[in-house]
């Protein structure tokens, strides 16, 4: 680790303006993440316009704060309403909501906030040690390795949508196909622009992101808006008992590193991290029968894991320029728009930016625990605000965000089309992350593919020419076979434990 850059980054992140943006981003992220049905990806997508006109360092700090603010926020609605903001907050409902039902809402919120805080801190430490070596390693990557890495990321994200792999592939193909629209940068050929000048630069992926994640999610939430019941919960004192802390501290410390490592892996994110954190603790617990009935460790473990994963997921984004999840894909889109190019060169050319972000994560976690514990009364009041009022506001924010991209209302129509398309995909149970991820990395994937072939005079041997590329090919094949392996082991465990299988089903 370069000590000078670290200190420079720390000083940059400690500038009053950046602290201000961390507070604003953390609070806004918490609020949007808290809204039932809306997760970090939507929070970042909707709040992208807030970063316009900002200094890129402040913008990246703000966006990261929105991201982990939304991760904190997601668990508020899980605990209080049994309605997770997104997949990574689902595990918080298992024991968080039963705790709230038992009159321990304040304790549950405190455990969740402290677990998220410690999980986040563990991950930031991991980030400090892992980011730079990984960036240095990524500098050795050529076009073939980059293409294969992107292929692995996409395959992993599709393979992890178990049970809907065909849909995942279709979403991915759709994203890749749409990324080919516009001028081909290598030959100057106009592709699929239908003589519309607006399309010559391609379909702006931010419009697709805002359409799918903001408009699409709001439309999807309209399906159940009339049946929404708001339960008012008394929160009381937001702190936990000694006994609860005793039961939570080790699960928090164990789940943090697990979550971080899962977050670093392409495709895997907060949802998987929190589930693994939860099941691991249940398996090693002396009181597994209490899980699902309000066990504090059942809340602490997934909360620590998912927050650690959210920090871990920033590693592939910053060091290789490849997002490993839907939310980091949205962030990449916004960063590129701001003129920042995450990747190995970021640490070489703009080390202070990279380290400012890493340090801001540390500060952000401190700010967020303060927000989530001291301002809990305000957050609960916001949670009481009817969705029928909040969703129209999100729609307007989506329109403003779109307008600021090109100052053209033509994009409004694209926004509505992709919003409706997003709704259809959600209704038909399509995973959205492969679509967004593919659309963002698609253009670069194609360019790297062609550059690699160009350098090898058209020979595909280039994709097997180095140890890294062979490892990436093997990992891609393994990730594609993962659903089959998963099915096989599930079948085997059913055969071996027929009693347990029947219980679990």
């Amino acid at each position, binding site marked *: 680790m370069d000590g000078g850059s670290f200190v420079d980054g720390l000083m940059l992140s400690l500038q009053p303006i950046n602290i201000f943006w961390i507070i604003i981003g953390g609070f806004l992220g918490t609020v949007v993440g808290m809204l039932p049905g809306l997760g970090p990806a939507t929070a970042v997508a909707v709040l992208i316009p807030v970063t316009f006109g900002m200094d890129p360092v402040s913008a990246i700090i703000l966006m990261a704060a929105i991201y982990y603010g939304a991760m904190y926020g997601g668990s508020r609605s899980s605990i209080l309403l049994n309605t997770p903001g997104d997949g990574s907050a689902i595990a918080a409902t298992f024991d968080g909501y039963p705790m709230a039902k038992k009159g321990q809402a304040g304790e549950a919120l405190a455990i969740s906030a402290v677990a998220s805080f410690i999980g986040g801190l563990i991950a930031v430490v991991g980030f400090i040690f892992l980011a730079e070596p990984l960036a240095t390693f990524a500098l050795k990557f050529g076009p073939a390795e980059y293409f294969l890495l992107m292929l692995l990321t996409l395959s992993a994200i599709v393979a992890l949508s178990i049970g809907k792999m065909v849909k995942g592939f279709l979403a991915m193909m759709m994203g890749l196909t749409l990324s080919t629209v516009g001028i081909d940068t290598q030959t100057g*050929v106009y592709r699929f622009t239908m003589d519309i000048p607006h399309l010559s630069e391609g379909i702006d992926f931010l419009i697709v992101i805002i359409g799918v994640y903001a408009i699409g999610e709001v439309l999807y939430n309209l*399906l159940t808006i009339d049946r929404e019941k708001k339960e008012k919960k008394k929160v009381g004192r937001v702190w936990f008992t000694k006994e609860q802390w005793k039961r939570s501290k080790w699960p928090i410390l164990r789940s943090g590193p697990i979550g971080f490592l899962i977050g670093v892996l392409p495709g895997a994110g907060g949802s998987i991290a929190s589930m693994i954190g939860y099941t691991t603790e249940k398996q090693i617990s002396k009181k597994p029968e209490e899980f699902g009935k309000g066990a504090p460790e059942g809340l602490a473990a997934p909360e620590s894991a998912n927050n650690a994963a959210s920090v871990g997921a920033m590693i592939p984004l910053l060091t290789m320029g490849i997002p490993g999840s839907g939310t980091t894909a949205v962030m990449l889109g916004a960063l590129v728009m701001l003129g920042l190019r995450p990747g190995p060169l970021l640490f070489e050319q703009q080390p202070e930016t990279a380290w400012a972000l890493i340090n801001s994560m540390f500060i952000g976690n401190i700010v967020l625990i303060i927000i989530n514990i001291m301002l809990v009364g305000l957050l609960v009041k916001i949670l009481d605000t009817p969705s029928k*009022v909040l969703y129209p506001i999100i729609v307007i*924010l989506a329109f403003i965000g779109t307008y600021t991209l090109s100052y053209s209302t033509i994009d*409004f129509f694209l926004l509505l089309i992709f919003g409706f398309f997003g709704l259809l995909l959600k209704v038909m149970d399509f995973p959205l992350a492969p679509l967004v991820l593919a659309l963002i990395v698609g253009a670069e994937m194609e360019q790297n593919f062609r550059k690699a072939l160009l350098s090898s005079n058209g020979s595909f041997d280039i994709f097997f020419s180095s140890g890294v590329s062979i490892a990436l090919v093997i990992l891609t094949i393994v990730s594609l076979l993962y659903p089959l392996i998963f099915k096989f082991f599930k079948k085997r465990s059913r055969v071996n434990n027929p009693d347990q299988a029947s219980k679990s089903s």
Partner: protein
Amino acid sequence: MKAIKLSVPIFFILFSTVFLIASFNLPKANLGNPNAPIYFPAGLSIIMLLFSVIYLFQELKKLHKENKYIKEMLSGRTPKLIGFTLLLGIIYSFIFERIGFLSSTIIYLGALLFYINGVKKWMVNIIVTIVFSFISWYAFSVLLGVSLP
């Protein structure tokens, strides 16, 4: 319900077919391999077409199985809610630059709130519309320097 279930795979089949045809009709490159811009989109379209057909068969197999989300999408006032939100969005797109951000947002947000939140809560709707429209105009236009019409 069946129509919606089938519309998505059919859309993917049509989309990939159109893209495939369009790929082969792309102009040739003057630099390097003349077919270089064609390979990637053509390859993707072929793979997408294959997956679309597999998906169609998957959907045909469970055509009679109920999808609760499609049911919700088609029941009660939900289709109207979705349709109204989109229709108002189209109108907003047309009037945004003509009458300006503030007036068009007050109209769009107000109409959405009255429709979604109900007429009975008219006071909340009016307050939220006016306060949010002004705050967002001030935040974006004045604080963030975004040029809004």
